[in-house]
């Protein structure tokens, strides 16, 4: 490991011909997630030519353009479908998708389920800010019950979707959650997620003060970070809490960690079998 740390590493990976600061709002956590992703890839020593960042549409989709990897900004909800094609076409690549909560859970929900079920060797980052930010703050599947948004002016009527439970249910190989307040922990799980075989999902809780916070009693971006600091609790400690104290707490950490071979590994193993047979048959 090099002695240089933090943002100096990140600066090396940013596209120097792009304009900074980036387009995201002041205090938006997405930049922190991007920084964390860069440090994770750096710490794994993966050459940048081998990294493919596939982003969806929305605020999170804008991240891809800033980093000097192979970057693809796809259509709304479809990042995982492009990623699946890329991984199958060239399994040597490290394919990482960046999606928002509306992107991954609403319009792209089916793709998420099947990427997990198929166990395709892709790392999915779900940047959950509880809102559709880019389009001006409409409610998303992750918007908490009772929250005020542009499309739920009288309060969100349904319960927010639990990304972790969804991924677990769909059979993902590795499922973890972190927040942009607990950056070191987020970096650790992100690094692990990228290094694992098969499908890994990391939900990063990242606040949107502009579209969500302001309308829901978080006066400044800082208030949202304070909320994360207070609400987040390690999954181990969360499990020990009695039911009635779990209400407002946000378990973070690793929920599932398996090592099942990825879809692409199984596919290419099957192909290798055929090739062996042909060689044998040929003699």
């Amino acid at each position: 490991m090099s002695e240089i740390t933090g943002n100096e590493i990140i600066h090396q990976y940013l596209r120097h011909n792009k304009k900074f600061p980036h387009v995201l709002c002041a205090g938006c956590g997405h930049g922190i997630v991007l920084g964390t992703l860069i440090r994770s890839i750096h710490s794994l020593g993966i050459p940048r030519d081998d990294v493919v960042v596939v982003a969806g549409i929305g605020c999170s989709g804008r991240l891809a353009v800033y980093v000097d990897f192979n970057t693809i900004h796809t259509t709304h909800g479809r990042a995982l479908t492009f990623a699946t094609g890329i991984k199958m076409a060239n399994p040597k690549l490290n394919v990482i998708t960046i999606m928002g909560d509306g992107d991954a859970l609403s319009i792209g929900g089916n793709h998420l389920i099947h990427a997990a079920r198929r166990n395709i060797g892709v790392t999915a980052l779900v940047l959950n800010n509880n809102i559709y930010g880019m389009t001006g703050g409409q409610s998303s599947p992750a918007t908490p019950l009772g929250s005020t948004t542009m499309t739920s002016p009288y309060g969100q009527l349904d319960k927010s979707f639990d990304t972790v439970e969804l991924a677990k249910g769909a059979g993902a190989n590795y499922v973890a959650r972190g927040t942009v307040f607990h950056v070191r922990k987020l970096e650790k799980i992100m690094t692990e997620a990228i290094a694992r075989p098969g499908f890994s999902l990391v939900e990063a809780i990242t606040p949107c003060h502009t579209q969500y916070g302001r309308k829901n009693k978080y006066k400044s971006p800082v208030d949202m970070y304070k909320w994360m600091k207070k609400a987040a609790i390690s999954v181990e400690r969360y499990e020990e809490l009695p039911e009635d104290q779990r209400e407002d707490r946000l378990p973070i950490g690793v929920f599932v960690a398996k090592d099942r071979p990825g879809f692409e590994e199984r596919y290419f193993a099957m192909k290798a079998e055929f090739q062996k047979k042909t060689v044998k048959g040929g003699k």
Partner: protein
Amino acid sequence: MARRKKRKEIFALGNEAVVEGALLAGCSFYGGYPITPSTEIMEIMSARLPKTEDGVFIQLEDEIASMGAIIGASLAGRKAMTATSGPGFSLMQENLGYAIMAETPVVLVNVMRGGPSTGLPTCPAQGDVQQARWGTHGDHPIIVLSASNVQECLEMTITAFNMAEKYRTPVILLLDEVTAHTREKIEIPNEGEFEVFSRTIPSMPPEWYKPYEETVRGVSPMPPIGSGYRFHVTGLTHDRNGFPSQRPEEVVELMERIHRKIDQFFYDIQLVEEIDTDDADVVVIAYGCVARSAELAVQQARENGVKAGLLKLKTLFPYPRRHTERVLAHAKSLIVPEMNMGQMSREVKRVNMGRVPVRTINRIDGQIVTPSEILKVIMQG
């Protein structure tokens, strides 16, 4: 011509011939979702591709994902395709637009069935012609090809891949249920008897590479992801480097180039077959399985003393205007039979500009337009 090696003959379905053509063209990636009447393409691919050297087959969760996956595979350097029908084609429109904007070569085979909606799943129709042209939103060029018999299914699939790679664009091959589900004897061409075009890859140092550069041909070289040329791909309007841009001059440059790269090669893209058109008074303009009926009708009309001819469209879009104008030089009337309410006759009328009467024969009952129906209209003079 030199004496050629005997070609292998097989008795194959139209859908099977598509697979043969795709493999000959170098297709090594298929992503799809089953739907009648295109399913055989997928089934045969699932058996064939894993046994080829680098072939990848994957069944996706829906048609949206199928398009996404083949675009991803194409960006990673593969010749990729999918096949679908009716409702699946509707779902593919979203990412079809992405492939146009990101200039990603892919081949999309749509075996048309009756619509709208679930429609007539197992009956033929030609109702997706204008959807193929204008289905995805925005102003865009597109190449749409067609085939009217099983041999052509093979040949036009090869052509579709070649055009996709040459022009860095998605190419749609529109088949119909009849053509796809007819078995016929076809000849598999030997290596060297047909052209295989593969996208050019950049040969300059990566720092100097621009993925969307203005070139003479309008098409930039395209490296596979992971080969050292790191760049950004987006469905947003972008500059020459691929980065999003809203500057009017850059938007115009991009949009004009993606139109121009198709427009200036009409002579290469617009394919037709002319049967007895040279002296024809009555010219039938047809495509797909209806062109077969028309061929018989034209032949029978000639036997009955009427100078009839057939202009068979193999390229539907960009519409072969030049060829139509040539037959208009002497034709006294045009007949456009098709299995829809008149989707291609619009294009014919547009070129005709009222010069000669254009008569249409339209069937939307899931039945093919028969030779006798066409003959009847021809004989009306």
